[in-house]
């Protein structure tokens, strides 16, 4: 009796009372068009679509309203208190002539808006327009000092990005510099800290290379797990006045939690895929994550609520028993799940294409095993 089961769920939810604010975000790639051709771009597998394929401003307005209605229904039915937001990106989102109208519409519907950009075409007027539209913060991708950055993103792109950062800061915006970590730049990260301080940005962030799209050619540049660990330990332990070190990496989020208890089989933290957001691509395709290109439907034809509840891909992402390797047996699974995009891209490079395989760069569980092994002899 499905309806009785559902009723019981709702009664239990009501008894539980309102939850704390739940961060729910949609990453929206407004266009595939870009003025750069970065060596590591995960988007580049998608053909740069002609502008006419992108969702129109009118369609985007309808989608924003649908997402708002969906969150409203979930909030009402399940007493969830959401903190909703959009990460607006591309391609290069500043290439959309109607970007500022889109941001204004999202703000008007109650969403926080963050913009992810390469920074290279942000003049003073556009920086001010971002402020006026209500953008909360801007992330600019910077891969290292000039010669490293230009070798990855193209000659001259570093100077242009710094010019954009200066204009953003001049307009009063909060700016994050974000680097994608690989062997191409790992040794130069201390210089990134100096650069961030020198530019006066508020945050410095790190992601790991996803060997997908054009980035699939950099599979050999993925860092070994031990090197990722050392880098994160160094970078995340920095305490610098006025500069926050951040990362969206679920594995990094585990570093501060020692002796993690078994968190069970309900995913609720770490990787956001399938539990606290989704991605919309320029042509309306819906995917679990910006870097995990598994189509769940299309926003032009499919209902978000229907997709969220019934997608088999999302169902698998939420099911621990479906996971392979160390992730499938990890007691941190519910609060981490590793990076599903890296797991997928890496397994694909080995001919398996399994988005539920283990995160090949995870070092956490290995550490705990090592610590246990060290402890065991003293018990004998």
């Amino acid at each position, binding site marked *: 009796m499905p309806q009785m089961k559902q009723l019981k769920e709702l009664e239990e939810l009501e008894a539980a009372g309102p939850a704390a604010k739940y961060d729910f975000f949609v990453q929206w790639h407004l266009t595939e068009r870009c003025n750069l051709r970065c060596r590591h771009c995960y988007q580049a597998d998608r053909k740069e679509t002609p502008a006419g394929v992108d969702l129109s401003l*009118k369609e985007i307005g309808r989608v924003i309203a649908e997402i708002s209605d969906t969150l409203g229904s979930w909030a009402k039915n*399940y007493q969830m208190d959401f903190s909703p937001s959009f990460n607006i990106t591309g391609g290069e989102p500043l290439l959309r002539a109607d970007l500022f109208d889109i941001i204004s519409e999202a703000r008007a519907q109650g969403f926080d808006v963050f913009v992810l950009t390469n920074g290279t075409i942000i003049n003073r007027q556009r920086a001010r327009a971002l402020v006026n539209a209500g953008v909360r913060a801007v992330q600019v991708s910077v891969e290292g000092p000039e010669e490293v950055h230009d070798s990855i993103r193209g000659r001259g792109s570093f100077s242009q990005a710094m010019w954009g950062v200066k204009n953003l800061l001049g307009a009063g915006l909060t700016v994050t510099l974000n680097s994608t970590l690989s062997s191409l730049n790992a040794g130069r990260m201390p210089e990134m800290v100096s650069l961030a301080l020198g530019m006066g940005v508020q945050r410095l962030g790190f992601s790991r290379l996803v060997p997908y799209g054009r980035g699939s050619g950099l599979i050999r540049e993925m860092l070994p797990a031990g090197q990722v660990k050392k880098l994160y330990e160094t970078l995340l332990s920095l305490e610098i006045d006025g500069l926050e070190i951040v990362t*969206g990496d679920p594995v990094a989020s585990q570093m501060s939690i020692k002796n993690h208890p078994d968190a069970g089989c309900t995913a609720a933290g770490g990787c956001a895929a399938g539990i606290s957001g989704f991605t919309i691509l320029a042509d309306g395709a819906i995917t679990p994550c910006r870097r995990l290109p598994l189509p769940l439907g299309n926003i032009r034809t499919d209902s978000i609520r229907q997709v969220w509840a019934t997608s088999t891909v999302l169902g698998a992402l939420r099911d621990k028993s479906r996971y392979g390797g160390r992730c499938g047996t990890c007691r941190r699974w519910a609060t981490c799940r590793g990076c599903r995009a890296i797991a997928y891209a890496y397994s694909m490079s080995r001919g398996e294409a399994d988005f539920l395989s283990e995160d090949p760069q995870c070092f956490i569980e290995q550490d705990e095993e090592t610590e246990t092994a060290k402890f065991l002899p003293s018990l004998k």
Partner: protein
Amino acid sequence: MIFCFLGRKLDIPDVPDSILKTTGKEVTGVKKVKALDSRTLEKEAIFWGNLKRQLKENPVKICRK
């Protein structure tokens, strides 16, 4: 525009607004949002119910930048 960076004077040419020409095109009349059936509603209730319980018992942070 002259931009000073690390003691160097860089001449960054301003980017004309003509580069901002991408806009989308509306595809009309294809989306039909139907009312959710009871099976879908049940799945939805189970998802949010489980998540809410987990958040209450084991508050954790979602990773995002």
